[in-house]
């Protein structure tokens, strides 16, 4: 088995969109990411369609997080990113781009829930206030709306002044999603947001994401293939720093074109 693998590692099958039929929210061109001298992403050019959920799957260490974190320059001080990341006709890596402004439009939720050591209310209101929104009524409204969208308003509406650190893991993660959408980003990046959570919380978060899809372009890293097939429209398979296959989720799971993808989704490695 190992023998014919070596013959097929060069196989790639990457879908591209017809710009006439699909609106592209974000895309990478000739992207390379290095940690020091070692190249973590060598081929990873994908396009992401607006108001869709795209899943990035692949074995651990394949570069999914690295790729995702490059998309809003979270890796700025950690890795060297070469190539273009096109967003609204601009390369977000160029010097003309205001990185803080960019991140307001391309938000991110992390693998480990990371609420601030502040109250639930402050977790959401803080960034808004920092950008000059000071009216209590406005803040109240956004806090409520974000928490509703993250499907946790009913559980916490009486405890808004309690420390966010007292919440359960699943609630913390949904708070982080609420916090991210409170500033109304354009694109939401999620890095294995449910990997540390129990099945119930996981399915709640999946529901939340499906809900959010109407207004947000979502890119989600997951190593849970059921999750990818349940919620995503498109799926990209990563291996060893390369995107090997990118297709509609239904296609990739039923009829993968690349042998490695097939091996991976049938559980032969990873």
């Amino acid at each position: 088995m190992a023998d014919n693998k070596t013959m097929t590692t060069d196989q790639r099958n990457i879908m591209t969109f017809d710009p006439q039929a699909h609106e592209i929210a974000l895309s990478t061109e000739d992207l390379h990411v290095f940690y020091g001298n070692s190249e973590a992403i060598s081929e990873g050019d994908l396009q992401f369609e607006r108001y869709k959920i795209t899943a990035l799957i692949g074995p651990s260490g394949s570069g999914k997080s690295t790729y995702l974190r490059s998309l809003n320059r979270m890796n700025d001080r950690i890795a060297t990113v070469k190539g273009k990341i096109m967003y609204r006709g601009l390369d977000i890596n160029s010097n003309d781009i205001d990185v803080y402004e960019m991140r307001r439009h391309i938000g991110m939720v992390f693998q480990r829930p990371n609420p601030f050591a502040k109250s639930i209310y402050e977790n959401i209101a803080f960034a808004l206030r920092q950008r000059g929104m000071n009216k209590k009524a406005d803040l109240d409204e956004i806090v409520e709306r974000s928490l509703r969208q993250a499907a946790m308003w009913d559980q916490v509406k009486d405890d808004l002044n309690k420390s966010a650190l007292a919440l359960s893991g699943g609630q913390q993660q949904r708070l982080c999603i609420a916090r991210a959408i409170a500033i109304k980003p354009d694109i939401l990046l999620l890095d294995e947001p449910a990997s540390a959570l129990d099945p119930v919380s996981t399915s709640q978060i999946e529901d939340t994401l499906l809900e959010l899809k109407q207004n947000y372009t979502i890119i989600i890293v997951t190593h849970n293939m059921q999750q990818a097939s349940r919620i995503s429209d498109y799926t990209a398979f990563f291996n060893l720093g390369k995107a090997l296959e990118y297709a509609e989720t239904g296609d990739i799971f039923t009829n993968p074109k690349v042998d490695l993808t097939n091996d991976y989704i049938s559980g032969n490695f990873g």
Partner: protein
Amino acid sequence: MNAKRVDKIATGVLYAIAALVVIILVALLGYILVQGVPEISWHFLTSPALSFEAGGGIGIQLFNSFYLLFLALLISLPISLGAGIYLNEYAGQNTITGLIRTTIEILSSLPSVVVGLFGYLFFVVQFKLGFSILSGAFALTVFNLPILTRSIEEALANISDNQREAGYALGLSRWETVTKIVVPAALPSIITGVVLSAGRIFGEAAALIYTAGQSAPALNFSDWNPFNISSPLSPLRPAETLAVHIWKINSEGIMPDAKAVSAGASAVLIIAVLLFNFLARWLGKRLYKHLTAE
């Protein structure tokens, strides 16, 4: 001799050493408290010192110690906070940062008498501030800056990067993230560091004898206008502190009850340092609890 016997003997010797050290240290504390605490009274704590007769107090010195402590913290805290933030959040891992760290370490290891002498040359003589509260506060600041910077840097480093990433991902600048998220989260340990450094400042004498001076002119405690020289708040009056007072009356040997006064003053110093220690622990724990759950 076999290994078992050697082991027994060595263990016995270690017990003896540890016991001896405990005895020395406890005797030390006990001596100060036993000699000093009986001297402490309301009169002792509030009345001014007397030079040539017995029965004087430490009121002015005590006030001076607290006032200098307050000013020194007021000046050194923001500077250390800024420096600690830069070192932990902005400085890269390179030779220059290494040199800067070394320089700060050198400052923290300078004997306090050298800091005092520099304060004398620079603040007292060069800037013509004379022996004054201000000179003393600046000298204490120099003395405190490296330690506080270090402890703040450590406190910040202990805050997980995922807190920072949370801020960046919301489009906040690094400065906003560190000042509004990381510093508040590190507050328990920062406060512990500040209070511990307060204990050190409170007992410091060598840095003060040639900056804040060795005299404690009478103060008018009903005049709180800092511009009047006899006001307790006046920054330009000389201000002997408690620790300096102990040193001075023992070196001069003109105060008839110098021993009793020193004992009382030492006990007050020790009790203050103890309180600072407990306060640091207690505050740190409480704040931490407050932050993590309400």
